[in-house]
């Protein structure tokens, strides 16, 4: 499976990569903002995307909309510090599959991805 990690923080991109890649994903790419994410997405066509919301140039909500237009069956997990319920509801209503709030533990991240993928295989 292919994973695209989108976050303007390098330490978060690296933390997600260290946690998820060894066991769950074979190929990985990263992007630091929404515009770059769309470029990478078109070229890479990942199965799963982790997507931050507060980013320069194009935020995660606008990016989410663009990505799902390109490939609607992509599994997208929002990884954001924005902890209000309405942000999560907005993202999930728009088509995101999972929402995890920063700061997260490695265990929570893995569990959130597994839950998202398990739900996909059931449905």
């Amino acid at each position: 499976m292919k994973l695209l990690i989108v976050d303007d923080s390098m330490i978060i991109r690296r933390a997600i990569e260290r946690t998820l890649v060894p066991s769950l994903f074979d190929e990985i790419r990263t992007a630091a903002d929404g515009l770059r994410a769309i470029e990478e997405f078109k070229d890479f066509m990942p199965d799963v995307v982790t997507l931050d919301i507060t980013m320069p140039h194009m935020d995660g909500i606008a990016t989410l909309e663009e990505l799902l237009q390109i490939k609607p069956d992509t599994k997208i997990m929002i990884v954001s510090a924005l902890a209000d319920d309405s942000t999560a509801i907005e993202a999930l209503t728009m088509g995101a599959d999972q929402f995890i709030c920063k700061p997260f533990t490695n265990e929570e991240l893995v569990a959130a991805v597994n839950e998202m993928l398990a739900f996909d295989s059931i449905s």
Partner: protein
Amino acid sequence: MSSTTASTSLHQATLSIFVQAIMRYFDRVACIPAEIGTPFLLEGEAELLDVTSVIGVTGDLQGCVFFTAPRPLLDELLGHIAEYQPTDELRCDICGEVANTFTGNVRKQLGPGFMISVPVVFSGRPEHLLWPKNTARYVIPIVWQSKRSLLIVCIGDAPAALSAN
């Protein structure tokens, strides 16, 4: 700016929401609790430590939030997320991410009308520092692993025009 002339002040409940976000962050990232000092109203120049990140706040509340920390604290925090070779780039990155997480997390209580910018990060002290006009600045002292950092919260209800400090 004299604090006594501030036309808007941060409600104590709002300040306490920031304190909760700070404590949650250190608990979750490092499993080592932070000690929070008594918040105080800042008069005169703000103390800035080695690296500082600034988040702009717009919407229902307006202003900015500063997180300022010494390099040793950032280095230790980096170690807790498996970044064992700290560089200035990583220190700036985590300083911005801490500020982003504090301010993003307070939306759980303050709601989506509390809109935040991406962080701007700098080292040292800039020649000119801009603060929202007529808005009180509260300092929340944080001690974690015997290292002191500060969260400076400068937000208010009134439109906040920038003026040189």
